[in-house]
């Protein structure tokens, strides 16, 4: 019982300092947030639409994995999958993010796929073991059609903005497709079969807003998702006919070097017949046609090292810059917000914005910080600057080294200097004109001319410190154990025994009658001996002492006898407090 109470007390005692420690640790915890290379598994088909017997490929890629193994391929009715070949490893390097270079290893399996019958086929997810963990691929869909007719009734073109880009350089892919305007009345269904959509490794998709002025409509994407496209006006004229023309644009940023392969794509268009009865609406495909866009690839090449500026911070593209400052009429030391905006086709989200505090031209400014806004087509940085003196007449040009993919060379894109007026602070100098005003320079603090004598700071040594550190708890344990052999010192009885003398002093100070004094003494004796006050009525105080010390209780016994005579016999009155206190102290010296 006593142990349990002790345990509870220790728990409560530990709680307060532990809470303080936890709060301190929480405050000091370093901000986590590293951009990690998580393993990624992707799978896509080289074509979303094939004829029976025609061969396609199922491409599986695993990035950033130390080990990867392809498990058994699923059995799919109407499809022959495999055999699965050995993986090929490709090491790629890229550095579009602030100039930092990273290395990625991509493992690729190209698995032959042959359709054996027509119909819509779903390839269920299958397992890839990546770094010892099992990861499942996404579900894939393949349409097998007996006759891919319709090439003459429609068209599908995919154009990349450039066949070769530099890593980190955004590029766009324009998908333009349509069908003969003569059959427009019959067409109420469109589906883009793009097996690569969202699944190509090494690409970041950029936000591509739709043209708000254009008429937009929604088409199926891979028969499941929806995608917004816009109608192109005027319609395209080809082969002596007019074609209803639609367009979708996607923008990407390549994140590593190598070749990006875009597989064959199809635009399926035709008629969907809707049957309605009282309970449900059923849609069934009627005759559909296919327009095919051939596969193509884009080479992603590394940034050239020749001519790369030392302060190149990763900006790539054809960019423009503008800058404005607010306010432009300030006192020396007052904050100016310099707003710099970079726009154009480039990796605006990824380069490191220039730091004026590192530029010699901004020596007359103090840079307090900056805030940034990033988007695909815009990068805005607002610098907080303060001119240090009234001699400053303009905010200097802020340069940004940029790699221009078109000219394949590095250039520097600079803002135009912005004229400002800086007024001297009132009372900052007693001199009249700006020219005559003193300039203050920063310099070292002067040398120490009178050093203190060298102190010998030889420490005691870790051995001693650790020995003493270990000795403290060991000594405590030993002392604690020894003390508790005679009982727990914080038990109520023991506390009462320790406080008995103090309590007696207080009670004697209040006592006026012999009875009150006698009761106080009996309570004192009870607390010191662990008995009840009644036990001490008519009992001798020497019983609480060892026999050899019995003489020390003589005076206390005499006092008690006198008090009892006064109480029970009516002889005598109250005793002097000092006499009683001295008698008690003498008895305590005897071990009471």
């Amino acid at each position, binding site marked *: 019982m006593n142990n349990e109470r002790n345990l509870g007390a220790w728990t409560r005692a530990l709680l307060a300092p532990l809470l303080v420690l936890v709060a301190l640790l929480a405050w000091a915890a370093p901000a986590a947030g590293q951009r990690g290379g998580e393993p990624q598994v992707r799978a896509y088909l080289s074509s979303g639409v094939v004829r029976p017997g025609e061969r396609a490929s199922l491409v599986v890629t695993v990035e950033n994995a130390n080990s990867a193994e392809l498990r058994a391929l699923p059995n799919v009715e109407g499809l022959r999958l495999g055999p699965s070949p050995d993986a090929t490893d490709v090491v790629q390097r890229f550095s579009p993010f602030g100039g930092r270079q990273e290395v990625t290893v991509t493992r690729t399996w190209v698995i032959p796929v042959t359709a054996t019958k027509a119909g819509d086929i779903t390839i269920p997810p299958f397992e890839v073991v990546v770094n010892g963990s099992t990861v499942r691929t996404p579900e894939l869909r393949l349409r097998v059609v007996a006759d891919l007719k319709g090439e003459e009734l429609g068209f599908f073109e995919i154009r990349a903005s450039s066949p070769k880009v530099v890593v980190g350089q955004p590029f766009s892919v324009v998908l333009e497709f349509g069908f003969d305007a003569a059959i427009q009345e019959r067409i109420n269904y469109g589906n883009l079969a793009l097996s690569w959509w969202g699944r190509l490794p090494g690409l970041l998709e950029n936000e591509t807003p739709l043209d708000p002025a254009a008429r937009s409509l929604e088409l199926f994407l891979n028969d499941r998702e929806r995608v917004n496209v816009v109608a192109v006006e005027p319609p395209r004229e080809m082969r002596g006919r007019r074609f209803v023309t639609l367009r979708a644009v996607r923008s990407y940023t390549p994140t590593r070097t190598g070749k990006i392969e875009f597989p064959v794509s199809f635009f399926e268009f035709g008629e969907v017949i809707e049957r309605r009865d009282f309970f449900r609406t059923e849609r069934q495909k009627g005759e559909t046609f296919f327009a095919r866009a051939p596969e193509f690839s884009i080479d992603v090449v590394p940034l050239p090292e020749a001519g790369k500026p030392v302060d190149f911070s990763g900006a790539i593209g054809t960019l423009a810059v503008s800058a404005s400052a607010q306010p432009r009429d300030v006192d020396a030391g007052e904050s100016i917000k310099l707003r710099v905006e970079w726009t154009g086709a480039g990796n605006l989200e990824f380069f490191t914005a220039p730091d004026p505090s590192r530029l010699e031209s901004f020596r007359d400014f103090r840079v307090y910080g900056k805030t940034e806004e990033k988007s695909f087509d815009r990068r805005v940085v607002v610098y907080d600057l303060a001119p240090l003196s009234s001699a400053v007449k303009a905010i200097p040009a802020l340069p940004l080294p940029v790699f221009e993919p078109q000219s394949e060379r590095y250039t520097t894109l600079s803002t135009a200097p912005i004229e400002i007026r800086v007024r001297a602070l009132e009372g900052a100098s007693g001199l009249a004109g700006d020219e005559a005003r003193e300039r203050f320079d920063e310099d070292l603090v002067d040398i120490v001319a009178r050093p203190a004598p060298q102190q010998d*700071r030889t420490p005691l040594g870790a051995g001693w*410190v650790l020995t003493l550190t270990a000795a403290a708890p060991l000594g*405590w344990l030993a002392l604690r154990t020894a003390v508790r052999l005679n009982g727990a010192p914080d038990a109520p009885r023991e506390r009462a025994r320790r406080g008995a003398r103090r309590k007696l002093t207080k009670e004697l100070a209040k006592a006026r009658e012999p009875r009150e004094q006698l009761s106080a003494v009996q309570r004192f004796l009870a607390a010191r001996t662990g008995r009840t006050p009644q036990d001490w009525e008519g009992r001798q105080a020497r019983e609480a002492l060892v026999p050899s010390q019995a003489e020390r209780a003589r005076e206390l016994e005499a006092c008690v006898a006198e008090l009892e005579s006064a109480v029970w016999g009516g002889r005598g009155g109250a005793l002097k407090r000092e006499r009683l206190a001295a008698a008690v102290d003498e008895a305590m010296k005897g071990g009471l």
Partner: protein
Amino acid sequence: MHSFLHRLALVAALFAFLSFFARARAADLGWQEPPSSGAAQDAFAAGVQSYRDGAWADARANFLEALAAGGVERASVLRNLGNVAYREGKPLEAAGWFTAAVREAPRDAEAWRNLEFARREAGLDPADRGDLRDTAARLATMLRLDEAERLVLALLALLALALVWEALRGGLASKIAACSVAVLLALAFVPYGVQSAALGSRPHFVIQPEGAALNSEPRDAAALVGRLAPASVVEQIDALPGWVRVRSDAGLSGWSRESSLLRLSHAR
């Protein structure tokens, strides 16, 4: 009352015993009265005078002599050598001397100010960028080893008192006191541990503006295996006259010319 006095006497005897040992140990180490050197004081005064006269080379020689003699406060001499190097147009070397000075006197605000100024002039990042990592590092090194040890010993004494209280009297208050002091002691062990770990290290500061060449062997004709960045701090592995074998944080090791490096912690 008697038994309590007996216990108290026991504890007092234990403390007396421990303090006797501590004193004996300190006396063994010559901790009581540091020796003073008149030669060092004279060299220092001559260095100050040369500095005032603008004779940088003489000032450097005198301060180096005072540093070698060891009779004046080392942090002051190192700081003055930083000033001399800066006046000689060597801000990178000055940054090295000031780095050594703040290692000796971690709370010397003027030495820190000079260090940051010299680093700025040398085109380096601040030594203390004020971020969490630098702040934590500065907190952990704000006490010298002897100061950290004194703090630990003082807290140990307090802990011993709290534990004696708990052993003799028990109760929640004594337990809270013991736990609180134990937590403080654990925190005090952080700077002590950091400084103790650095005790045996021999760091060098690269003062060559173009970086220090790292050769595979201690001769100029040996293969160049790397180049240490200016202002980087490397650890000495070995030394030969005129050459120091060092290892960088990245694990690169080799021999570098002694003149390209500045030793941050001199003989203790």
